[in-house]
């Protein structure tokens, strides 16, 4: 008898919190900013119930540094914010990367630049995938497209962070965070990660452990660290790319989108099919490592690729890198928190057919 997993209705932001608790996260440091406020609010309520620590920091910048401390001490720690707050955390993320500390950061993106608005957006793609902080570092970026994935990818984020001692960014948007959808709460993976070799737990009967990223001597000490980091990034690029395709078998056109946009494109694919136009969807789930190989394969032989984003065109650059000149790549986007509509996308694709 297979136990029918119990479906519950949950708000996206809260699903993130519950998944983090399931993953064993017991330390959360946050700061109020719309549209991610339910994450800290949920953690403030939930963590004390499981013997965890919730702290509202004096700023997003202080929060990411509290995560740095908790992570250095060997704990699973998380912070969440929305675009402007994530900008404040970039220095901390660079420090976490330089010190090779595992941490989970959640960005429920909002309209930008500047104070912007509180609507959902995808305007932080460059910052997320190219690094908003200083120095050569990368961090994993997971792009959920549903409340179920917000939970599943948050859980996954903690394992990837510990496995590779890296920052993992869960990159959602304001709409996803505010939506409520049925989901099945994921089960913990049960994976164990031994941190006893580096975590700050007190130098008892062992040499001191140090967590730092200032490397002055010998002269090439910092380069050696960077070479080691790059090696790690290559391994991640090889092993950790994730994507999804929909209706691409004999599609003449390939629509590419991530997160919220991918759901809209799925609707466009259905509408186009009704209008006798064969289109398919390619959805990257990891934005770094970006699924270049998989997208190149999926794009081969298509008449045209249309990338749709809630920004001025950012992921489209990675799509062009993947597709190169095998097919022409077009872009359609809305900015400032506006949502691309299925009809507009259908009309754009039908324009290719005439």
């Amino acid at each position, binding site marked *: 008898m297979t136990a029918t997993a119990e479906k519950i209705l949950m708000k996206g932001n809260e699903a993130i919190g519950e998944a983090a608790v399931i993953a064993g996260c017991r*330390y959360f*440091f946050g700061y109020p900013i719309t549209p991610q406020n339910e994450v800290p609010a949920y953690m403030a309520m939930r963590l004390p119930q499981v013997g965890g*620590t919730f*702290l509202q*920091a*004096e*700023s997003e*910048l*202080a*929060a990411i*540094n*509290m*995560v*740095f*401390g*908790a*992570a*250095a*001490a*060997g*704990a699973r*720690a998380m912070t969440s914010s929305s675009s402007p707050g994530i900008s404040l955390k970039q*220095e*901390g993320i660079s*420090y976490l990367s330089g*010190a090779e500390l595992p941490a989970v950061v959640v960005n429920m993106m909002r309209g930008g630049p500047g104070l912007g608005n509180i609507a959902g957006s995808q305007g932080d793609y460059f910052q997320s995938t190219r690094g908003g902080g200083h120095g050569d570092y990368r961090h994993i970026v997971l792009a959920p497209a549903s409340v179920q994935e917000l939970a599943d990818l948050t859980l996954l984020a903690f394992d990837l962070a510990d496995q590779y001692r890296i920052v993992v960014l869960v990159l959602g948007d304001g709409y996803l965070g505010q939506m409520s959808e049925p989901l099945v709460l994921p089960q913990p993976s049960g994976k164990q990660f031994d941190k006893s070799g580096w975590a*700050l*737990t*007190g*130098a*008892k*009967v062992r040499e*001191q*452990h*140090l*967590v*730092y*990223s*200032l490397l002055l001597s010998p002269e090439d000490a910092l380069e050696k660290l960077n070479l080691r980091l790059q090696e790690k990034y290559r391994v991640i690029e090889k092993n950790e790319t994730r994507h999804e395709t929909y209706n691409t078998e004999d599609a003449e056109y390939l629509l590419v989108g991530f997160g919220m946009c991918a759901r809209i494109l799925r609707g466009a694919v259905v509408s186009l099919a009704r209008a006798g136009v064969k289109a398919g969807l390619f959805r990257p789930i990891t934005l770094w490592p970006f699924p270049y190989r998989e997208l190149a394969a999926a794009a081969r032989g298509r008449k045209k690729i249309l990338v749709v984003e809630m920004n001025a065109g950012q992921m489209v650059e990675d799509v062009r890198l993947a597709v190169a000149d095998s097919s022409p790549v077009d872009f359609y986007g809305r900015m400032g928190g506006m949502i691309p509509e299925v009809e507009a996308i259908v009309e754009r694709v039908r324009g290719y057919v005439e």
Partner: protein
Amino acid sequence: MSNSVLTKVREKLVYSRPDSMYPRKMHYCAGCGHGVVHKLLGELMDELGIAEKTILVAPVGCAVLAFFYFRADGCEAAHGRVPAVATGIKRVHPDHVVIGYQGDGDLLAIGTAETIHAANRGENITVIFVNNAIYGMTGGQMAPTSLVGQKTKTSPYGRKAEDVGYPIRACELLNTLEAPYYIERTSVHDVKNVLKTKRALKKGLMNQIEKRGYSFIEVLSACPTGWGVTPKAANLWVAENMASVYPLGVVRDKGAKA
């Protein structure tokens, strides 16, 4: 070389580098107060037997390498973020001794918010604030604690209060907060005050061990290189100029017997 040739004189070592400190030459300039504070910290780690459960959070500044000198775990916080990193560590390891070690730029310029809020939360950590009225590591720029009229690389005509404000008194600032348990300002410009500093540091560490809450010890310290004077003149400057702007003594001690 024993003193008396005739009788065999036995001698006992009564003072040396603390065991909790690695036998490494410190990188600080000649006469720098950081070295004295480090030595006192090392002595207290010995006396309290806490090195193995101490986690030292170093700032960005001259003391950025502080953790290399102690047989204790350590980490480096981004500039100004020591209290936040220390908070994260302390929340994970409530029974460890978490020490935040900072200079004036770290604690009172970029890190002002973290300083005030860790104190306001009454975080059960010990913050050691070495105030040398200048940015040392970067070559002698004006700090929030630079005195009015003090010449530095970025106040070449002397600090003008009407332009860039006055020296900030951290102890008095934090004394307006409810939570802090113990706040004292000492100095290391002469032997008497070095010993007072050690007593204050010890109290700050004991408070943490006994889980009494936030302790803050500000230590006035010479920066011969940054001030462009000899170590001796620098200590004199601390005594004659800094100590009047930054009065020494206990600002608050909730543990003091009435």
